């Protein structure tokens, strides 16, 4: 067994002793989490966790930037106590990680399409039209979403391919016609296309974003960190009640997804 609580894991909260927590984040996943040009971690997930830190005096967070693969291995192994990477929930994953009771954020997920295909509103439409989909990184939550859809609709599946984050520039691929559509989170689409200074603002009349789902995203806790996860729950609950997270949403996603929370299935 490898674990962290022999050396660094002195029990929490007692005698005002402050426990150090390593929070791993995907450092190249703007705007959810990334390392900015000044070398500071930021993004919705990161900033939300910073707020959590403020409410937990008995814990001190240290943010460790890394890649998604390492984050998953590292949190499950105990090198990091918690990790944020816009993770979605699946039954199987609860075997490996503690999912807390309270989610961390919301993610609007949708299809990027050419203007002329605007009428495609859902995965069903997309699949029925026999369209091709840009590859999605295998370790990306979006992959799971499509995969689950396919499991549920074996008669009308989407053509799903795994690929690499960096080699696929979804919006460009769609525009080029290399694929008919791509799955994307709303945030990046906003920043790339809709924003005045976005790198693909010139395509603003060529491509559209059609949301098909809003999904809760979660921090992943190491299996031994139940106590800490409970503390997190307390804190994040308070933040939600105080509407502190809504501002972060606006800031990073240009949209407050809490407004559609009642429609969220998972």
């Amino acid at each position, binding site marked *: 067994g490898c674990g962290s609580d022999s050396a660094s894991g002195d029990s929490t909260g007692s005698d005002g002793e402050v426990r150090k927590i390593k929070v791993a984040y995907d450092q190249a996943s703007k705007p959810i989490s990334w390392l900015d040009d000044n070398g500071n971690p930021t993004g919705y997930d990161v900033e939300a966790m910073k707020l959590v830190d403020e409410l937990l005096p008995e814990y001190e967070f240290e943010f460790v930037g890394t*890649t998604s693969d390492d984050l998953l291995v590292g949190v499950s192994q105990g090198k990091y106590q918690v990790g944020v990477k816009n993770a979605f929930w699946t039954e199987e994953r609860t075997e490996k990680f503690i999912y807390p009771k309270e989610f961390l954020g919301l993610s609007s997920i949708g299809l990027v399409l050419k203007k002329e295909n605007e009428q495609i509103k859902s995965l069903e439409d997309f699949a029925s039209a026999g369209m091709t989909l840009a590859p999605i990184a295998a370790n990306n939550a979006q992959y799971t979403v499509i995969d689950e859809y396919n499991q549920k609709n074996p008669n009308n599946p989407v053509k799903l391919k795994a690929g690499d984050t960096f080699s696929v*520039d979804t919006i*460009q691929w769609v525009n080029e016609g290399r694929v008919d559509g791509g799955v994307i989170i709303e945030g990046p689409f906003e920043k790339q296309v809709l924003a005045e200074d976005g*790198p693909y603002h010139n395509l603003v009349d060529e491509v559209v974003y059609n949301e098909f789902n809003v999904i809760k995203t979660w921090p992943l806790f190491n299996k031994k960190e139940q106590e800490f996860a409970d503390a997190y729950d307390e804190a994040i609950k308070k933040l939600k009640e105080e509407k502190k997270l809504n501002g972060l949403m606006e800031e990073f996603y240009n949209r407050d997804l809490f407004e559609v929370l009642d429609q969220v299935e998972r």
Partner: protein
Amino acid sequence: MQKYFDASYIWDAFPTLIPFLKVTFLVVILSVLFGSFLGFILATMKIGKNKFAKKIAHGYTTVLRCTPSIVLLFLVYYGVPAIFINFGIDLNDIDKAIFVVLTFTLQFGAIMSEVIRTAYESIDKGQYEAAVSVGLSPPQAYRRIIFPQAFVVALPNFGNGLLELLKEGSLAYTIGLIDVMGKANMIIASNYNSHALEIYIALSIIYWVLSIAIEQFFLKLERFFSKGKQVVKSV
């Protein structure tokens, strides 16, 4: 194509990328240093008479050659602290760069052991015999006669290994250590994955220039050290 391809991204990338060469260099230089040392020890085991040591060294080389670097990196990054924790030593807080260097040291050692072994074996046994026959002690014979000649033979392959390492070094990014390759990925991420082609072109130019420089440097070294070398052909 102009619509997507914007050369200005290439120019803009250079000043951002170049400072991160520091990390690349650090990793490469340290790994080469320690890796050559390890390779030397392994080569000695292979050349020596001890059958057991021979088997170990050859087995080590096979396994390391067959392990993808990324797997090795994870094995080291998670395996080594896991071992040390049993002795009550916590390595989780030490710098990531150390694990990266350790990984490449292990790998480079395997490659270098073969380079050194073949270089050593290419030197005629007569050179050693002549050296001891003029009264040099065996260690003196190795130091003054065998090694300088083996060094020249090993140089080109050493250069190849170095170039290979330089490129593999980009793997460090997987565990979050940001070198040039990592920085390029982060620039792309901060552009929301757009204009990646331009950034990668800038990156490949940097790598290319670097390896040409290294290649030339090694050619010069080779020429410098092989002064007396034409002999071998004429005999």
